[in-house]
């Protein structure tokens, strides 16, 4: 297993290099000047040019790229142009928020999404199936910001159950305030993911429920619970794990809209702000870190395949 991990990590190096180069090129292709953002609108052209020079933005692009890659090679992800901190520390400060939200959302999504998917598949064509799929469609389709605003008006303003915005750190404020600050955004975020997971689970279950071995199990008198839960679902797990991996990747990338609506200081907000400010080192650094996170998640998913389906081999 260790060999697989090492091989996958080595294989990831060219992928990450490609991500690095693409992130650099794409960001520099976008018009807009970080020096203008830093200088402010009341600054004259000379001040803007001076800042461009100080930041090295007046150097040829290839030279800037080479310099950035060289520093990456030494483990230096660079320094944000506007935050007065390193890329690593900027990401590290916001990671607990994003990870908390991702974890809570995943904890809500997985059991509900899987359960609804199985339910819809088992009762295919019935009103249960229609109801679940309608809910899934609504979850996938309704804009998160709209649900978010309605939720705040109902649960924060009218009922006063949860805070309307902000994040309470787990270690500093304790589990109660932490959960209260995250429950609304996590549930709203889960609506989309539940819809996605339920549809994928249903689809996988429908394929399996028609298989001969399911018919055989029933013919042998195996209980429905055991047939569906153990024989059928076990065979859809590879698909479920894949989808869960995708969901986790998306969640770690940050939930821009939800973080914005609920004023959560997470990675998504950081990246959006960095893009707006053309904070090149921060955007490039975070893209690379995301790339690495995706690689790690994919490796984990591959390893889980081995566990859920013994037929899988990486020889």
């Amino acid at each position, binding site marked *: 297993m260790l060999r697989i991990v090492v091989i996958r990590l080595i294989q990831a190096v060219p992928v990450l290099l490609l991500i690095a180069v693409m992130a650099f090129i794409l960001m520099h292709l*976008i*018009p*807009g*000047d970080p020096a*203008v*953002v*830093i*200088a*402010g*609108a*009341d*600054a*004259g*052209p*000379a*001040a*803007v040019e*001076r*800042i461009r020079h100080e930041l090295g933005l007046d150097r040829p692009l290839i030279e800037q790229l080479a310099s950035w890659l060289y520093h990456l090679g030494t483990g230096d992800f660079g320094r944000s142009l*506007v*935050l*007065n*901190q390193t890329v690593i520390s*900027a990401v590290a*400060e*916001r990671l607990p928020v994003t990870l908390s939200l991702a974890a809570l959302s995943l904890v809500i999504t997985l059991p509900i999404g899987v359960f609804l998917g199985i339910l819809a598949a088992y009762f295919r064509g019935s009103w249960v199936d229609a109801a679940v799929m309608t809910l899934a469609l609504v979850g996938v389709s309704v804009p998160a*910001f709209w649900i978010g*605003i309605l939720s*705040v*008006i109902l649960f*924060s*303003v009218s009922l*006063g159950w949860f*805070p*309307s*915005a*902000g*994040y309470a750190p787990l270690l500093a404020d304790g589990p109660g305030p932490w959960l209260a600050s995250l429950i609304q955004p996590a549930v709203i975020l889960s609506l989309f993911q539940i819809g996605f997971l339920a549809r994928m689970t249903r689809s996988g279950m429908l394929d399996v429920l028609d298989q001969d071995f399911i018919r055989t199990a029933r013919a042998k008198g195996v209980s429905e619970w055991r047939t569906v839960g153990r024989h059928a679902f076990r065979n859809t797990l590879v698909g479920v794990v894949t989808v869960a991996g995708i969901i986790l990747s998306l969640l770690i990338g940050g939930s821009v809209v939800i973080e*914005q*609506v*609920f*004023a959560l*200081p997470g990675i998504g*907000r*950081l990246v*959006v*702000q*960095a*893009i*707006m*400010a*053309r904070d090149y080192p921060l955007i490039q650094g975070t893209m690379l870190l995301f790339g690495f996170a995706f690689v790690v998640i994919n490796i984990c998913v591959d390893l889980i395949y081995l566990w859920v389906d013994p037929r899988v081999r990486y020889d």
Partner: protein
Amino acid sequence: MKNLRHLFHRATLRRAALVGTALAALSLTAVAPFSADAEPRRGGSLTYAYIAGPGTLDPHVASSMVELEVIHHLFETLVTMDDKYNTRPYLASSAEASPDAKTFTFKLRKGVKFHNGKEMTSADVLASFERYKKVSPNASVLADVESFEAPDPYTFVVKLKNPNAVFIDVLKSPVYPFAILPADQKDKPARELDIVGTGPFTLGEWVKDSHLIIKRFDGYVPDDSAKGPDGLGGKKTVYVDQVRYNFVPEANARVAALQSGGADIANDIPAALAKRFEGRTDLTPLRIFPYCMQVYIVNTQQGPTRNPLVRQAILATVDAPEIIGAMNVVAQPSHSLVYPGSPYYQGDAMKPYYSQKNPQKAKELLKQAGYNGEKIVLQTNSNYQNMKDAILVLSELMKEAGMNVSVDVVDWTTNASNMQRGTGTWNVSTTSFCSNPLLGPQQWRVMFYTFPQVKDDAVLDAAYAQFYTSLDLGKRVAAWADIEKRVIEQAYMIKIADIGALRAFNNKKIEGMTPYYLVRFWDVSAK
């Protein structure tokens, strides 16, 4: 102008905004300062739902509103703006200009303490100005300085190479404030300053993108020569223990925080959301006027708008009420580039150029210009709806006058960069200016040249030279008349409207909150 550091900023951010004027009324709603016989309660804390977190608290490089609102609680300047936005001494007890307007002497208040407990002296002032000259994007205003001198601990002297009749006014600018720092900060690079000032608050906790706390500075030495607070200066008294700025970029969430008790005050409230306060007697809305000015910027260096007649044709098409109606912001028509309370206000002199609604005149001007249907690109952004709406309405008005118009929507950073650096292929765009109309001609200068890309305009150059060298206010006013006329007549900028701000606070929790272009937490108490 707006910026995105808070959207990012700057977010975002809305770009620097400084307001106001003496006589133009701040339109207030049921706002009461402290009653004379009631002693405000000392203690307690306030929570402020704030649009974005500051990018930096280094005053010498700060220009966005989100930064300045915090900075003016932490740092102070030699001179500052009073309630009517005029210049008043502050850390300096007096500021005097020599008859030739080349030497300026500032006598410092004695006993003023920094947050680190040390007394402020002229050595600190000198070091601060030297740092400013090195790091500030606004350093060009000190380019003419021959020397800074500190002849004794309480006297600071600036000598210029050439006369500058408005040098003291320049120093009151709340944008890129000329804040006084401890001398040991002199060599600190931009944005790497220790946050130690002389202001009535000190910096407490600052968690980026989350919140910032300012705490009462118990060692604060107020300006006892004043009767009470006056603009950004005067005698300040801090009653609250701390103020927490929660960074809430989404307007709905700021309003919800105020409604649910999660915040005691909220800023940047869209006009449409103010309806939610109806029936809530505990929530007091504040309309701040004037606050900013929105103008069209016309690029003088490329395409058909190189021709003044084409620019004037665009000017002739403008229908301000129509545009204001589409923008859905707190706004009111105004033809002037300064506010009525300013000594530079020209009355109705500029009115004939404003909101002409005259497509026929535009057609005639286009004919004279030899305009032959060349494309005119109107560039705007998707971040600020009022800017986008203003451009969309203008495009229809220009089409009506026979112009071939194309609308280009980009993001704000691209839009702002293009205007400020002259890049891109745009001919007309729009933005808001806030501190510039408030502070007057000297603050407008860079904008007039930079944004429309004005080059080699002898009339404008001469008028500004006259302005800076005229020691007599009357002559400066006359010079400004020439400047304003030139800018508007040449359609470098086309005035749309004065833009206001909308804030609200919980009157059951806060006492003493008064409207000003910046929210101020001195002389405010928690109930």
